[in-house]
């Protein structure tokens, strides 16, 4: 284990429930926001619940600012004593309390007087742009407003660690855009560590300083937005960022893929490697193209569908890939499923990196 400073979060989460198991190491520095990005059922929410103390650890430990909250060496600290704020996916605002009493709930439990807690709650509602909404009940709030009350409620309790579970998933597209920008601002102001769970790469990229990609309960890739999106290591991320991704063995500029096909990249590399290229890098021809050194192969058109202002062509064959073509090019090629076609990708378009 690396010797992190006691500041921030240091956790090794192992939770086993039947056949399902998560095993995740997380280090989050004060002021840093980490996104747990992964498909549904990857164990992201379970990890969050374990951190909050709502799910018991099978093994591992949780330490926050040097204090051990859970682990083999000590008894488990219950959620009410952890000072970990959670913004739940469907907010879970108390329906019997007004917005201001919802926000004041945390401060009241931590021993703040009634009047002072209300003043604090009012200030927080102000900060999230909901001044004047204090007397509303949760069901009188729109989705975006409820989300902001939930955020204010979590922050008003002055949490040492902030957890957000799919904070934007329940919002419609328009509200989502505004709320995301505002949430980003509040996360930047939060001085403690923060973790955002999401299956939306845009949310992850916009809100977090660092991404941890979780699949099947494990971290499969970690890094800042740029490195994760430029060099995906799993099909899930490759699909999210719209790249064709292959794994194989590199020997110089040639990468022999598991399927037997060989790709030629510009840079030389040795050993296990990934090769990735965007669909826009694929050129399609009716007959075998000739010319400069590049990757060409014969493929079958598996499907064509609209993707933005161009068409995305799914190619079957030795190399399954997606290719983007303009509608004009598609018309010229007369693309239809089952058709045989030649595909080409320049070596300079292929990104190769060690696996």
């Amino acid at each position, binding site marked *: 284990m690396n010797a992190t400073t006691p500041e921030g979060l240091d956790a090794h989460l192992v939770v086993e429930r039947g056949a399902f198991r998560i095993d995740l190491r997380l280090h989050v520095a004060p002021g840093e926001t980490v996104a747990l990005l992964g498909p549904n059922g990857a164990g992201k929410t379970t990890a969050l619940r374990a951190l*909050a*103390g*709502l799910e018991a650890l099978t093994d591992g430990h949780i330490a926050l600012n040097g204090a051990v909250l859970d682990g083999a060496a000590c008894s488990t600290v*219950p*959620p*009410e*004593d*952890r*000072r*970990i*704020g*959670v913004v*739940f996916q469907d907010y*879970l605002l*108390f*329906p*019997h*309390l007004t917005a201001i009493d919802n926000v004041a*709930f*945390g401060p009241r*439990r*931590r021993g703040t007087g009634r009047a002072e807690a209300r003043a604090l709650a009012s200030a927080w509602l102000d900060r999230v742009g909901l001044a004047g909404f204090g007397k509303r009940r949760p069901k009188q709030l729109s989705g975006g407003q409820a989300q902001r009350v939930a955020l204010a*409620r*979590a922050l008003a*309790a002055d949490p040492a660690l902030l957890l957000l579970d799919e904070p934007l998933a329940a919002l419609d597209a328009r509200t989502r855009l505004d709320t995301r920008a505002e949430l980003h601002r509040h996360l930047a102001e939060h001085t403690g560590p923060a973790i955002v769970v999401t299956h939306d790469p845009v949310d992850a990229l916009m809100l977090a300083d660092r991404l941890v990609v979780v699949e099947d309960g494990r971290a499969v890739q970690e890094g800042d937005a740029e490195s994760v999106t430029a060099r995906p290591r799993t099909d899930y991320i490759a699909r999210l960022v719209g790249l064709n991704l292959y794994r194989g063995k590199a020997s110089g500029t040639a990468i022999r893929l598991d399927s037997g096909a060989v790709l030629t990249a510009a840079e030389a590399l040795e050993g296990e490697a990934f090769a990735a290229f965007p669909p826009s890098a694929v050129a399609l021809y009716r007959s075998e193209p000739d010319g400069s050194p590049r990757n060409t192969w014969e493929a079958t058109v598996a499907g064509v569908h609209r993707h933005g202002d161009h068409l995305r062509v799914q190619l079957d064959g030795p190399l399954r890939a997606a290719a983007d073509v303009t509608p004009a090019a598609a018309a010229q090629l007369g693309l239809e499923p089952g058709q045989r076609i030649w595909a080409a990708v320049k070596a300079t378009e292929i990104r190769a990196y060690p696996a």
Partner: protein
Amino acid sequence: MTASNTKPAKRKRQSRRVPAALLAPAVIGLAFLILPLAGLLARTPWAELPARLAEPEMLAALRLSLLTATAATALSLLFGVPIAWLLARGDFPGRSVLRALVTVPLVLPPVVGGVALLLVFGRNGIIGSWLYDRFDITIPFTTTAVILAMTFVSMPFLVVSVEGALRGADLRFEEAAATLGAGRWTVFTHVTLPMVAPGVLAGAVLCWARALGEFGATITFAGNFPGRTQTMPLAVYLALQTDLEAAIVLSLILLAVSVIVLASLRDRWTATP
């Protein structure tokens, strides 16, 4: 109107028509439920009503009934809500057996309940003899006995209602409260209880109404002493043997109270919160 316009309207009406095989028994059943009440109203001596209502015995019975039913409801809330919580949230062996035991008074003939209470709290009963020897306290045939008898038969209504509400409550709200620093007791008082309040109120009203109508256990365990243990139902039964009109007036009052309770339950607590 064109043919195409009438067709959907006709079909709509057809789909709403109740089959005769259901309608006939429904009407007969409704008549059976409503006619006795109508009969009661028809036989009510309206002219003498004010004078009848002002009779001291009548007032005493009404006062005692309201007092004891309310006290029984308070006792049921005090002990029944924790029982409901245990049954809904507790994780211990024999929980289903306990649930069955708690609901026994629902199906037990009230007279049997009265006998059972007498055997426990009577002067020779297990607890009754101890109370008498140690504190010189006698429970049977007192107002306390009325309250205990009512509590015995009516508390299960509250427990069943509150347990149902607790089972339906979303536990994640309690988790949210815990992350905000609320301990288990605070979670119960500040989140769980307010969220199941409609269920608790409905249960309390049912419990109160059942206590108000209690007869069998009361007359067995508490007797029939005017002013002390003679509640409304007991007074009705007694009046029936001597003064039919008094029985009718007493019944009318009980009917009015029941209808008011039912109406308020409908309006306030069965509507969506």
